[in-house]
């Protein structure tokens, strides 16, 4: 059995630093396993958030060697073990302790997006008909496990801290899932353009790159929404039409 060293960021908001911990490793281990071993054997009060340990719940988001990833899906054999593996909390959210951040902002943002509003049922028994083709498109967005890694990597939030003006990639995906839902009748374009700040996204695709569910966030969600915004607000004919309507 070999061992590996982990440089784990420990501390609370405002103060903290990396501490090195060495632990034994075995075949197939992921970063979260090593963190658990360190927690059980060396530092019982190490704070780490996790649940399913199978890449399905999106709780154990962190930055491993500087890259936003799920700890439960990062295998040790995919990392260089000759130097300490750094594990640190996400940067776009306030720190609570060690690897745990306060992600409550995300839950508040969601409530700003208008809820699902279905058309009346298609059949007398109160059911709807949808074709698989139409469903496929939103199913991609509905794979989201809300790990918030896309929010973490997005420079608008991470570097510019525009949390009050910009809802971030996760919620563009959420809005896209609603906007493209075959049954939905609501219109969310005006808020996306204004209060929710979709214009701040300059499609660097960082969010798409870190998505553990491989959702093509930029191409399939954000760009189509941006196009709808353009159609609604910057199409000269529609602008003219709106002017007369007033």
């Amino acid at each position, binding site marked *: 059995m070999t061992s590996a060293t982990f440089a784990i960021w420990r501390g*609370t908001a405002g103060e903290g630093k990396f501490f090195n911990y060495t632990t034994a490793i*075995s*075949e*197939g*281990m*992921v970063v979260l*396993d090593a963190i658990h071993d360190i*927690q*059980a*054997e060396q530092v*019982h*009060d*190490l*704070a*780490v*958030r*996790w*649940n*399913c*340990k*199978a*890449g*399905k*719940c*999106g*709780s154990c988001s962190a930055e491993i060697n500087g890259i936003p990833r799920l700890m439960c*899906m990062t*295998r040790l054999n995919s990392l260089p073990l000759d130097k300490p593996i750094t594990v640190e909390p996400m940067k776009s959210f306030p720190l*609570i*302790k*060690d690897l*745990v951040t*306060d*992600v*409550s902002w995300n*839950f508040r943002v*969601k*409530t700003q997006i208008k*809820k*699902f509003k*279905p058309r009346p049922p298609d059949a007398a028994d*109160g*059911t*709807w*008909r*949808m*074709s*698989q083709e139409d*469903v496929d498109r*939103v*199913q991609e967005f*509905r*794979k*989201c*496990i*809300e790990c918030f890694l896309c929010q973490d990597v997005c420079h608008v939030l991470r570097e510019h801290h525009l949390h009050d003006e910009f809802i971030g990639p996760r919620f563009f995906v959420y809005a896209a899932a*609603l906007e493209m*839902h075959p*049954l*939905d009748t609501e219109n969310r374009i005006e808020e996306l353009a204004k209060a929710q700040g979709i214009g701040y996204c300059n499609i660097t695709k960082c969010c798409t790159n870190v998505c553990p569910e491989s959702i093509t966030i930029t191409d399939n969600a954000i760009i189509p929404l941006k196009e709808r915004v353009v159609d609604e607000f910057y199409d000269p004919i529609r602008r003219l039409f709106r002017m007369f309507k007033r």
Partner: protein
Amino acid sequence: MAEYQTSEHDVLVIGAGGAGLRAAIEASAAGVQVGLVCKSLLGKAHTVMAEGGIAAALGTVNPADNWKVHFADTMRGGQYVNDWRMAELHAKEAPTCVRELEACGAVFDRTKQGEILQRNFGGHRYPRLAHVGDRTGLEMIRTLQDHGTYQGIDVHMECTIISLLQDAGRVVGAFGYDRQRGRFLLFRARAVVLATGGIGRAYKITSNSWEYTGDGHALAYNAGADLMDMEFVQFHPTGMIWPPSVAGILVTEGVRGEGGVLRNKEGRRFMFDDIPETYRHQTADNEEEGWRYCQGDKNARRPPELLTRDHVARCIVREIKSGRGSPHGGVFLDISWIKERIPNAAEHIKKKLPSMYHQFKQLADIDITTVPMEVGPTTHYIMGGIRVNSESQMSTVLGLFAAGECGCGLHGANRLGGNSLSDLLVFGKRAGRFAAAFAKDHSFGTINTDQVESVARWALEPFDRGAASPADGEGPYRIQHELQAKMQELVGIVRSEKEMLVALEEIYKMQQRARRVSVHGNREYNAGWHTALDLASLLTVSEAITRSALERKESRGGHFREDYPNKEMTFGEFNIVVRRGPGGEMQVVRERIPPMPAELKQIIEEQQR
């Protein structure tokens, strides 16, 4: 005096998986103010792990399906010790609950006619599981979470409840702590719904996450409620076994529903070797027919891989114990073989089982479209739980309701796959409705501050001990790991009186040790402290499982005894109930199952033909 923040809710729902969310939504819709306590963040509960689908007799794929067939399937799967009234309500109400979920925005896979698609699953006569690929649970929890978000429910995330508060027997609140800061919280409520899920963490190999320490079971038991059927633990036949760090992670039954087959190291499809009499007429006796069934042939019978989970798990154990297992001590589950039957098999598998494809690719370096998986049984679910009224879901304690996995009755001795998600919807909704009605009829009770003080003191003792003797106190993890190992070894898939008596002694010793456990550091997000407190619940449910399993001197469903390997007619007339005796000791009693009405008996007989 302990410091704590107090909040008031008409209905307090503890647990925010499918059942808790559904209860909260229903109660809120009934016009009462609802508080929802999540042990983790909202939307992370174990419901996200459910893969296969929601069982409901919608009849979209096979119109022959209806509630009667679903009812009979559920009773047969549960070996007739189910609460027949719950099984009836469940079968009747599940289709509406699925449609309600669609009305809230859930996007199920579709049939060619545009209706909700249904898939095959173990023990279900017809294709019955409404699903979204193999991530149905995520779809369900996200839909409920998003719907609930707009409904004005007060959500308390990362809070753990450590005690229910009572006023002259009635439950009037709950006491706990918030994970992030470690502060105590007191919730006053007119009615409380427990929806805390399962107990998987009592075992070493489990598909359950850290949260599933039987909190709701223990809270209810300590408040004087009955627990029932605790001997019935479901070991899911297919969990990952290699590499060691992923052992226990679930491999959905959907793999078998899509045509996956089980083989031993000799390449034999061993499930054909032992088909129980009660299922013989419904089960294919050759590979060809089994494949036709998976392809939707309505005249074909199910392949034996889709027999009930208890049976499949035991067959796998038999193969492993007989030396016919796979290299890492499991058996082979092969979906890649379907490339012999259909074109573009790899694409088909990725489309139908995307999570499984990624899970094996990322965690085990295995491409399931080309090679077989290695699988073995994993502790998955407890059929037993808090004994409830079939209609209202109220427990034997006034003002305390339970729904979902922490409740019991629907599944009897063995749960059918897909019946859990529908259970959450049907009985979560009922619990919410009846809890709201109860809340409207009752005032807030009086909080017993002595009780609060004593719970708070108990919760902080591990810190005191840690501070008093920093060097020699025992930490919680070692006890937890030992308990998991003992339960796995002594009260697992194959049980005997001799081993379970040893288990009871071991549990007793660990209960003594747990009272002396010490922790260090401060109260903020301190996993060691949380583990120390969870340990009490784990030990209570472990004792309940062991005592109930000792009492049931027969083999039935998820409960298999090598000293009593047969099913006994007499035990089919009872449920085993445990409750707290006057001296704090655990009492075990047999409760007779009420007679089934003639019309339900008739349905069962008709469906046996």
